[in-house]
């Protein structure tokens, strides 16, 4: 019962932040809010794998990039409608996630983190160098975004925000439902706590680890597709370690292993970062680094932990 209240408060806070741009329909606010929603989805998807299932991945930027590139390339070169591009990018990223899960089955802790970091770096190098597929350092641009949206600049911005928020929100809720109400979620928690014990109790850790990788990668890739259709430019920098670093910072800030915590942490940290941007571009990354260090030492359960009174 005690855990219900902070969780409900967390979801309420998320909903409130989602409605915020309705009160401040300025195009700049809407642009920021759209990006914030994408980060929230990305952070929550990382948490599903690393916080909830305990498989520490330092390569999440790779899945984000794969989703973004897949959607952008499909729309640009094959004329795929962006509405279909969303699930397509997610599926490609999810498939890659399952593939990445195979070597991960044998690895734990440091090794897993470093391998996933290496995988993301490989993805980034491929994105940077494979000109025909990815456009090289210049990336992919000049591709269509969602058709059928209102045309005026403010109305278009608002419509895009609603689309992005809707997809991101639905995805985060879906992840939370999977984690809290299904057998898969119970398996994820068991794997996180002690995967050897879980296996000895009959949990199919192989299948569930692969599922966690696939889901996390698919939702991370979905965030990538949302990013692609919002910004309409995909370049190798989306696969950089800085992206992963920010995501991890947001997740630690919000509280690992809760799904809603990292989403909320992402929104808040993003808002703080943008507010600090007015003081000088570099301060927000310094703040992120400080936040990560302080929270890991003193508040390892993040905001979610604070809410639970730890």
């Amino acid at each position: 019962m005690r855990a219900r209240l902070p969780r409900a408060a967390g979801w309420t806070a998320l909903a409130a932040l989602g409605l915020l741009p309705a009160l401040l329909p300025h195009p700049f606010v809407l642009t920021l809010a759209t990006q914030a929603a994408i980060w929230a989805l990305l952070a929550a998807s990382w948490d599903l794998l690393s916080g909830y299932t305990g498989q520490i991945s330092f390569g999440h930027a790779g899945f984000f990039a794969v989703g973004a590139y897949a959607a952008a390339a499909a729309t640009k070169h094959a004329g795929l409608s962006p509405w279909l591009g969303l699930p397509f990018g997610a599926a490609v990223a999810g498939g890659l996630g399952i593939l990445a899960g195979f070597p991960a089955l044998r690895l734990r802790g440091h090794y897993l983190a470093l391998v996933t970091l290496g995988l993301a770096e490989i993805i980034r190098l491929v994105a940077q160098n494979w000109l025909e597929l990815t456009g090289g350092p210049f990336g992919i641009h000049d591709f269509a975004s969602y058709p059928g949206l209102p045309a005026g600049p403010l109305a278009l911005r608002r419509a895009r925000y609603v689309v992005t928020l809707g997809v991101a929100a639905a995805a985060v809720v879906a992840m939370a439902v999977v984690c809290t109400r299904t057998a898969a979620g119970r398996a994820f928690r068991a794997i996180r706590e002690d995967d050897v014990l879980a296996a000895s109790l009959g949990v199919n850790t192989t299948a569930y680890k692969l599922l966690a990788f696939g889901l996390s990668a698919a939702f991370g890739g979905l965030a990538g597709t949302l990013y692609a259709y919002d910004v309409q430019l995909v370049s190798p920098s989306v696969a950089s370690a800085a992206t992963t670093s920010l995501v991890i910072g947001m997740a630690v800030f919000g509280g690992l292993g809760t799904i809603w915590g990292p989403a909320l942490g992402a929104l808040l940290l993003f808002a703080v970062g943008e507010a600090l941007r007015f003081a000088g571009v570099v301060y927000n990354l310094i703040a992120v680094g400080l936040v990560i260090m302080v929270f890991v030492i003193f508040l390892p359960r993040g905001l979610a932990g604070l809410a639970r009174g730890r």
Partner: protein
Amino acid sequence: MLESLLEFAIQGVVLGGLYALFAVGLSLIFGVLDVINIAHGEFFALGGYLAFAGIVLLRWPAGAGVVAAAIGTGLLGLAVHPLLLGPLRRRLGRRPAGPLYLVLTLGLSTFLQSTLLLAAGGEYLRVPPHVRGVLDLGVTAVAYQRLLVLGAAVLALAALFAFLAHHRQGLAIRAVAQNPDAAQAMGIPLGRVHTLTVALGVGLAGLGGALMAPLFNVYPAVGFPLTIKAFAIVIVGGMGNLAGALLASFVVSLAEAFSVMAIPSEWQNLIAFVVMIAVLLLRPQGLLGRAVVR
């Protein structure tokens, strides 16, 4: 043909010296503290900045600048354990750390890189070569600067190995790496050893940064690609195994140097990661590591 082979070999060996400075320091920290220092590259960058400050701003001779940069980086590294790693360790007690140390050093990396960006700006700072001139070997030529990097790296690593083998503090470090509880029971102060180890490890990175400053230029993110590659090297060599890190550094650097004969040069950077993944799947303990049940 012979010229290019020789040239690749020299390039590979020189680069290997740099990788070794970096990877050995990283492996040392891991072997003793069980922590992977994601911020290692930022100390490399810091070494470059300190060298710039000494050689370009203060007009010290190159040798003094490099030594001062290495020592300066090491001194700053002394703060890492008492301020960050120590408090986390105390907080965790005997509980498994999970990703927390990794996240902590990731935060440190972000913090240091952005602070460098803020303090020094993002432009590439130029440091003049520490030594000028070229050694003519008949079939090819090597810049003295590159030989200096290799020579200094070899000297520094030899000094480190000698320290670890014979000096009291070095033996204490090895004792803690082998078995922290037993070392503590013998009266070795864990915190102090940890602090010293981190300072030594990042000092080596700072030395590398100071030596490479004329070749790489100096900017905040200069160290990060090296860091990731160094992780791959350390895994290939066997985590915590210094000789393995040394060997793997040269294996990777020579593979990269010779790879240009077969693949376009942009793909060079992939080699380290591909080798790492292969090693992890086929021989997870690395080239020289002992097989561990995991």
